[in-house]
């Protein structure tokens, strides 16, 4: 792989994407360094896919600057794409071909000879633990298996950067863990990962560093733990009151913890010591139907910064 001259692999300055009169990405700055795992965390419509497609050198940049490997996607799209692996939001596997042929022909797109491509396909199917499905059709595969085939496909050209658009959305917990494990191995092998997600646990699991996106803008940036430490007290007390009664609790809870958020289905009390806050709630006679103390997460950071929840 190329020499590391300290220059970021991906560099964006004031990056914008406009569709007609609608601006989906409104001027964002970020850098991705070689070997790191970088995430875009944001709700539906935040502009994650639009950003990823610009990074993938398929969607023209409408404003600002974008460089990959120091190259401009507008002029060096082919050479950039030759060094990228892409896992699109939809798998887009070819149902007319079996699993292995899906990979083999994809390797051909990168000018890899048939013999090499077939060898590479077998190796990668082993890597995603699907070697016994090589000659299977696409249709009968589960969602998680299809996702793994797509990841194997994206690795056919030994990419330096792997772009993953919502790698585990719609998968069951077990399938997600299998995928996370594979992605973690890739990271260990030195592949730079860039992924989008609207799951905070995924972002915490996989990303060294992430940006939180909302409505086309970056609202925060940093390593997950740091973002949580900076933007939220250590613990969260979740209180549930009878239906419709959450909003009425405001006065009774005033002053407990550092901050409170009233959601339609629960009240969140942010405090460094959640148990102490709960005792205070009981002492004031505002006892909820149920209560739970947990650690602050990226979800809370997002709520803090945008006033909305990540997953509706």
């Amino acid at each position: 792989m190329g020499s590391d001259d300290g220059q970021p692999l991906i560099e964006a300055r004031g990056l914008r994407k406009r569709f007609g009169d609608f601006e989906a990405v409104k001027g964002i700055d970020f850098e991705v360094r070689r070997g790191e795992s970088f995430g875009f965390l944001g709700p539906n419509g935040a502009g994650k896919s639009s950003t990823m497609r610009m990074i993938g050198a398929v969607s023209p940049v409408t404003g600002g600057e974008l460089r990959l490997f120091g190259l401009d996607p507008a002029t060096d799209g082919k050479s950039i794409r030759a060094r990228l692996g892409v896992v699109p939001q939809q798998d887009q596997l070819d149902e007319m071909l079996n699993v292995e042929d899906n990979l083999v022909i994809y390797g051909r797109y990168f000018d890899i000879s048939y013999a090499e491509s077939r060898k590479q396909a077998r190796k990668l199917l082993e890597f995603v633990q699907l070697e016994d499905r090589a000659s299977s059709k696409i249709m009968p595969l589960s969602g998680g298996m299809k996702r793994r085939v797509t990841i194997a496909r994206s690795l056919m050209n030994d990419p330096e950067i792997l772009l993953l658009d919502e790698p585990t959305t719609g998968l069951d917990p077990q399938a997600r863990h299998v995928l996370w494990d594979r992605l973690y191995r890739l990271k260990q092998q030195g592949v730079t990962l860039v992924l989008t997600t609207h799951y905070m646990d995924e972002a915490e699991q996989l990303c060294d560093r992430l940006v939180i996106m909302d409505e086309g803008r970056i609202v925060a940036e940093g390593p997950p733990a740091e973002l949580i430490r900076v933007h939220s007290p250590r613990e969260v007390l979740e209180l549930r009151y009878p239906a419709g009664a959450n909003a009425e609790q405001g006065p009774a809870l005033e002053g407990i913890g550092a901050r409170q958020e009233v959601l339609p289905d629960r009240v969140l009390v942010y405090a460094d010591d959640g148990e102490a806050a709960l005792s205070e709630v009981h002492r004031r006679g505002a006892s909820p139907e149920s209560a739970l103390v947990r650690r602050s997460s990226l979800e809370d950071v997002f709520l803090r910064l945008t006033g909305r929840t990540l997953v509706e």
Partner: protein
Amino acid sequence: MTATLPERRSLLGPAVRVFEHHLLVYRRVWKSNVLGSVIRPLLYVLGMGLGVGSLVDDGPRADTALEGLTYFEFFAPAIMATTAMQILTNDALWPIRGGFVWFGTYHNQRATPIDAGDVVTGVLLWHLAKGVLSAGGVAVVLLLFDGTRTAALLPAVVFAAFAGIAYSAPLIAFSASRETDLAYPNIQRFVIVPMFLFSGAFYPIDQLPGWMQTVTRLTPIWHGVELCRGVVHGSLEFVNGAGHLAYLLVWLVVGYVLSRRVFTAKLGV
């Protein structure tokens, strides 16, 4: 999967990779396809050529009406061109939508060092091959009959395929530019089928009113039919042949340029 890159070789352009994708898919369906492309024209040629032929050839104007040919000899070579047109126009409708929407094939290809323009070139290369295959199926049938057993079937196959892509090139631009596939059946019903019926495959177009003859001469299929029939029976003059080919080429080039434009816009949103 780390340091060593697989050996790479670059013989031909990225468009050929798109062609290879089609070939790989075709490998799974070729048996039914090949059988169909021989059996269908066989039934057709037997039913029409011999059936209708037996009526026409004994008719009062049998000697002059068909340029001195039997009805079978007149009609059968033209079927090469009309078959290529029918198969390729079909391929230029739903499968193109599949590449964009249902399977995402073109988007996948575009994510690699293949450009939107390469995709169009590759698809048209494939259509040319498919045209050769389908007109070739008819040629195989024509080899069975004395009146059409000639080496000139070979250039006729090429002419037929060429007429086919003169249709599919502009049609690919059209179908790619649609937001839905609702218009596709109407293209077949109101554009392709009439062209088929008035192509001059079944009767000489001087049987038509003057204005309709003019319209027919503007359709690519008539040029394809004239090329195939003329070359098979050795009556194609160089100047006429070149004229027909040039006319088909115009449709092909215009369609190709339009298709590249549409694909570039659609694959680079």
